[in-house]
């Protein structure tokens, strides 16, 4: 392999030898230390052989002496390649310059990626790093991974493990958050500042279907009808002595899972006359590089709908390039007024109601009865009615501390 590379670097040719005494020619080449190989005998006293470029240039005298005719069949090697592209020096320079730029760009960090963060968003972590002088576009040797690790550990108490490393031009930061403690810390924080009770209050009228109290004193029972604003679970637990008298009050944040049957009014109306976009067929394209427009025609007066798709090229998975390509496609449109047909109005109102029901289901609300009807008029369509739901009920509301309990006389 190495020999072939060296031979290519020197250059070699395949020649055809024709003469009266080719053996004498070969012997003279050998005597003058000229190396030949792959010598083949062809018909009619013609031989073919391979030799390097220096040997070919040195055999001029031998050729004349032996009266041998030499014709070159093929040429290989770097000298011939350079001669063939002697007028393409700028192209070579451009290739080398591109390689240099690519090599230099790998010395920088072009993106910072986070893994394992669920509570803290990427943007928040990036802002934190940026405040301490670490951001994309910096040289790698200016970023100390240990410093990044200790910085994130100090800034966020609930991050228990951090690892930072370079992968190509990416700075990969893996984070492990203490998810179990986050909720506990919040609870402890709330309990620390709980000087007044927090009740659970009904935000709408309904009938209690089920009630499971976790903390607090329940004030209503299953099957009872409640009104809006009524306290469902009180955040005060009285402390009684052996005789049953209240000696003190403990305040809590009331917690309970309460489901009630509520009746909700649903109303939705859609106008027959509406505006639609009608595309005129004129399209404009534009190409952007790092936010700057490379080419693209200006828009005429009118309304245009633009769609911009952005791509960030990368060499492989770990070498993003500091470029952002964007292709913008704009379509001209005009607003035209149209009227919905009766069938279309019905379909739209039904669809809207189905979406409303779907959202309720996603929140854990069940629909027990549906009395919504659709009315189609000349100018609009209305969907109106009541919906009976089985939904969770109870919102937190701060209460007041009760007066101090009466002190018992000493016996």
């Amino acid at each position, binding site marked *: 392999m190495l020999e072939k590379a060296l031979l290519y670097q020197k250059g070699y040719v395949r020649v055809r030898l024709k003469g009266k005494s*080719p*053996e004498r020619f*070969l*012997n003279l*080449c*050998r*005597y003058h*230390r000229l*190396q*030949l*190989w*792959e*010598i*083949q*005998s062809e018909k009619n006293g013609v*031989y073919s052989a391979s030799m390097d470029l220096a040997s070919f240039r040195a055999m001029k005298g031998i050729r004349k002496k032996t009266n041998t005719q030499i014709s070159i069949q093929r040429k290989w090697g770097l000298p011939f390649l350079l001669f063939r592209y002697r007028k393409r020096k700028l192209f070579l320079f451009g290739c080398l310059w591109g390689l240099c730029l690519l090599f230099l760009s790998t010395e920088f960090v072009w993106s910072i990626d986070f893994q394992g963060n669920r509570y803290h968003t990427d943007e928040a972590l990036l802002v934190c790093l940026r405040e301490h002088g670490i951001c994309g576009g910096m040289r790698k040797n200016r970023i100390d991974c240990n410093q990044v690790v200790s910085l994130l550990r100090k800034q966020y108490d609930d991050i228990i493990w951090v690892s930072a490393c370079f992968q190509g031009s990416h700075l990969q930061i893996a984070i492990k958050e203490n998810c179990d403690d986050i909720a506990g810390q919040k609870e402890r924080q709330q309990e620390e500042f709980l000087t007044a009770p927090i009740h659970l209050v009904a935000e709408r009228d309904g009938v209690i279907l089920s009630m499971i109290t976790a903390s607090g004193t329940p004030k209503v029972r299953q099957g009872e009808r409640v009104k809006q604003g009524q306290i469902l679970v009180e955040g005060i637990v009285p402390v009684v002595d052996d005789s049953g008298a209240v000696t003190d009050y403990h305040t809590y944040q009331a917690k309970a899972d309460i489901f009630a049957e509520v009746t909700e009014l649903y109303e939705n109306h859609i106008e027959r006359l509406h505006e639609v976009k009608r595309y005129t067929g004129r399209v404009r394209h534009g190409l952007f590089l790092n936010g700057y427009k490379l080419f693209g025609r200006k828009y005429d007066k009118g309304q245009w709908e633009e769609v911009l798709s952005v791509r960030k090229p990368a060499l492989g998975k770990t070498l993003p390039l500091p470029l952002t390509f964007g292709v913008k496609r704009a379509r001209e449109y005009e607003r035209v007024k149209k009227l919905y047909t009766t069938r279309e109005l019905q379909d739209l109102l039904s669809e809207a109601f189905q979406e409303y029901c779907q959202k309720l289901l996603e929140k854990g609300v069940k629909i027990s009865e549906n009395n919504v009807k659709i009315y189609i008029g000349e100018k609009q369509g209305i969907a109106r009615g009541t919906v009976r739901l089985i939904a969770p009920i109870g919102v937190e509301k701060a209460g007041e501390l009760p007066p101090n309990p009466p002190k018992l006389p000493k016996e």
Partner: protein
Amino acid sequence: MGKCKEKVATFLTLPKDVVLGLPILTMIGGGELTLENFLGLCEYNATQIRVSIQDGEMLIEGNSLVIDCYDFQEMKIGGKISTITYQQKGGASC
């Protein structure tokens, strides 16, 4: 003189190819032959190669004979070699 040299080389166990200039043949199977210590090429075609050596000639016969390498030190012959004949000066063959 030649016999004397040979006796001295044998007695002192000196390499004969260096002292006497004898050719060295290295053959791999019937398709590759390396020849060293030769004087020159007398004849070459696809069926036979005649090489001049110290005290005679060597004839290599076969089919599709190719000289893979030909330089000052050695010659490598490839192809289907069927016969190697050693012709000393005076016509005797071995």
